[in-house]
């Protein structure tokens, strides 16, 4: 992104948020949409792209004539990678700026921080990133992958196609890797993998000295059984991790690494030649061959005025979430939260890989699972694609949550219905 474009965007956002205060009476001719992504601090690396994507989607919608005959107006705020600030900014968006819906958050911590605000003020949040599941809120739509839409199919691929029998679950020490690894471990054991063939290992945020960890992986992999690494390592720590893998000569043919947090954006800062063949599991890759995707990429390059900007999975999730919201508002004829919550369930919109994403009663969506291999040009080559899978918010592989389901349709309207006791409530209530 050019300096000018970025500065212009920030200026525009600043102007918008100040006019929002004074122009309350003008609210009738525009519909405001909140964009809650960190533009500074550690998470800016990932979230800035999503802010740009949201501005592009809103821009496109306005070119198509807006929504309900009104123009859409983006209200961009910067929660600065600070979790409590997310809640504050969310409150400001809903009560001061009176936005109709909010698109935002990246980390689970930020989502957990804003969840009570959205429930209290009864507004809607679209959350576009893959997450660990074990949550369901009346006011949040999870358009990224739940564990069964990413982690479990990836492990299946390793077992069935690569013949892997020994697993290293390597993650950054926070809630998403911890929960995902707990689910994966239970799943692997249910598939007959021995407990001694699973090594779970955590490293701190922003870890950069991977020598010991990588040699530990090497040692674990020399037991004469095909071994793979399942990586839930968070953003920044990935570059030194992959560099160390490359330098210590761990090839994808010997010990493949499948990652859940490494996409085109993360690879764009890396020399990927030593990494060819390592895997990632997502619901979308930029290399997806479909007319919808080609059009989306073209639009993105035109909007950012930079034809080197890559697209990634959370962008597709934002695209789906935004379009589903637009469709639901059109069906309801209003942006009123309760009415939109009713109409949005069952709404189907096209995704970018040529299929359809449907919003399910558990506020998750249907997604295909794609396994891709890293290529030397920083893109992924898709080696497997499943049909659409319904997101499962309460994992079937954790003893605490296997009996829970979520259904926000009336009359059930419950996020944690226990099918064993027949009551609403339990974990997460």
């Amino acid at each position: 992104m050019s300096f000018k474009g970025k500065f212009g965007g920030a200026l525009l956002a600043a102007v918008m948020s100040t006019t929002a205060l004074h122009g309350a009476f003008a609210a009738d001719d525009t519909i405001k949409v909140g964009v809650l992504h960190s533009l500074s601090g550690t998470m800016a690396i990932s979230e800035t792209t999503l802010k740009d994507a949201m501005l592009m989607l809103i821009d496109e919608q306005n070119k198509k004539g807006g929504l309900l005959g009104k123009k859409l107006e983006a209200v961009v705020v910067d929660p600065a990678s600070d979790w409590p600030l997310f809640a504050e900014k969310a409150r400001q968006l809903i009560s001061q700026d009176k936005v109709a819906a909010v698109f935002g958050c990246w980390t689970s911590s930020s989502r957990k921080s804003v969840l009570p605000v959205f429930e209290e003020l009864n507004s809607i949040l679209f959350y576009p990133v893959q997450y660990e599941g074990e949550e369901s809120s009346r006011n949040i739509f999870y358009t990224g992958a739940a564990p069964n839409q990413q982690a479990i199919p990836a492990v299946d691929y390793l077992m069935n196609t690569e013949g892997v029998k020994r697993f290293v679950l390597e993650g950054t020490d926070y809630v998403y890797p911890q929960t995902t690894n707990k689910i994966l471990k239970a799943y692997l054991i249910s598939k007959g993998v021995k407990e001694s063939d699973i090594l779970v290992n955590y490293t701190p945020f922003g870890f950069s000295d991977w020598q010991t960890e990588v040699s530990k992986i090497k040692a674990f992999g020399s037991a004469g059984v095909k071994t793979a690494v399942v990586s839930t390592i968070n953003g920044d720590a990935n570059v030194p991790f992959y560099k160390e893998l490359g330098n210590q000569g761990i090839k994808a043919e010997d010990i493949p690494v499948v990652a859940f947090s490494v996409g085109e954006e993360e690879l764009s800062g890396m020399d990927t030649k030593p990494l060819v063949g390592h895997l990632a599991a997502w619901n979308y890759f930029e290399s997806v061959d479909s007319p919808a995707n080609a059009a989306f990429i073209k639009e993105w390059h035109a909007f950012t005025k930079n034809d080197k900007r890559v697209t990634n999975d959370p962008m597709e999730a934002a695209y789906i979430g935004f379009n589903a919201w637009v469709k639901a508002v059109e069906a309801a004829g209003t942006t009123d939260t309760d009415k939109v919550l009713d109409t949005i369930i069952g709404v189907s919109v096209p995704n970018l890989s040529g299929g359809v994403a449907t919003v399910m009663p558990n506020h998750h969506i249907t997604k295909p699972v794609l396994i891709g291999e890293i290529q030397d040009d920083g893109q992924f080559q898709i080696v497997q694609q499943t049909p659409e899978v319904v997101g499962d918010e309460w994992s079937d592989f954790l003893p605490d949550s296997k009996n829970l389901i979520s259904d926000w349709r009336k009359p059930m309207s419950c996020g944690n219905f226990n099918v064993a006791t027949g009551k609403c409530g339990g974990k997460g209530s």
Partner: protein
Amino acid sequence: MTSRLFLQAFQAILVLFVVTLAAPSFAQQGDPKPLIDQIGKADFAQAETLIGQIAATGDARVVPALQAFSDGDLYVRKSDSLVFIGKGSGANLDLTEPVTGASAGSAPKGAMTKLRINNNLRRAIRSAMGGLTLMSPDRGTRLAAADSVLRAPSAENLELLETAIAKETDGEVKTRMEEARAVSILSSDRPVEAKRAAITTIKGLGGREALGILSGAVATADPALKGELEASIKSINDTLALWDMVQNVWFGLSLGSVLLLAGIGLAITFGVMGIINMAHGEMVMLGAYCTYMVQHLIRTEAPWLFNWSLAIALPVAFLVTGAVGFVIERGIIRFLYGRPLETLLATWGVSLILQQAIRTIFGPTNQEVGNPSWMSGSFALGGLNITWNRLWILVFAVVIFFSLMALMKKSAYGLNMRAVTQNRRMASSMGIRTPWVDALTFALGSGIAGIAGVALSQIDNVSPNLGQSYIIDSFMVVVFGGVGNLWGTLVGALSLGVLNKFLEPSVGAVLGKILVLVLIILFIQKRPRGLFALKGRAVEA
């Protein structure tokens, strides 16, 4: 009787017929071209079978095609579904025939489809190529072939391997081939005695590789061999345990060198000058971005200079960050001497401003900084696997440290600097321009942080957050080593590195880090001035 004769004759004819029928198809199997063309239409599983068939032709001419397939350079022409090797960037691909290697003109990228490949196919290709290139006239190729057979042993390659060994004259290649033969024997149906000899050879090979091969064989091995196998595994494990200790020391020194690099600039600005400089990490970050800019220019303007990019980036980073440091000292810090709290807040503000400025100019995402070829890969030293980039960083850190030491102790400027920090008023009355020395010293510390950034760009992310991940470690090293003492910084960095790497394997990275912090807190309680406390009047000043 006649009918039987007739029947026999008929059978003979039938056999003859079958043989003649089979003959051309056999000959066809000898020609790899149609098989390669079939890959164009095959899915992953079919392609794997085809690679096996191609390897079975024994035709070494297919090697370039297989290599191209593995590298992702094999294409199928959309118009006639023939397969070619395609090379070249831009809109057009230069095509070559896969078997004969003859040029087949060029074609626009749109007319060709790249053949997809996955890890299973890469493995199949590796094994096929190993068998095909064992007799190659090139020594390096043969060595690589023996390596790939060793990694992907198969009973089919065994006879090939034995012929190759008989012909081999080069000692190293021959040993490698014999090791590969031993591994292949282990997975074949050769008699127990041969396998026993093989186990001894593999045991001699040692290391993780041998361990993997032997452990893999335990489950399916002949009961007579079990004891032998387990004894070998135990002996390799014992050797490895020893090497693990050595490896931990090496990893520790390497981590220590990174800590030293990160902390050494701070040892000057904080240690010698007493400025709590929260913007130190951002100086490191600016140095890394200088490297990126230099590499970016080299990539577009003078690609042949790429291996020199770091050498060019060093002075650039030193001057740029030194200048930034100079401006910060003259613009902000000089008004705040003697007010540590305000200095802390002001430099912290500066760090935020610098971070956001870089984010606005370059974007929030990581920038790609490449490793020159002499900093990539690793080499084996006994049971140790030493990566080149870590080794060079260790060397670099030590060189920087001693140059700085020499500057402080041997030069006139160093003398002035020590005079000013020890007794400002006395130095001033001797005619030293103390404000000027202050500014230069801060610039020097910043400049050193900048060149540390050049080195760290080789192992870490080049992003606006780079500095933040080093600031705490830097302060930790300087405080632990003893404020104001460069030797303390050296010993502090290396001992923290080694301590960390000895804790990590047993308690994990997260707990290891916590334990190190706790130990430092306890240590500071005991010795508030760190490992090497300064003595004398300067301490009280």
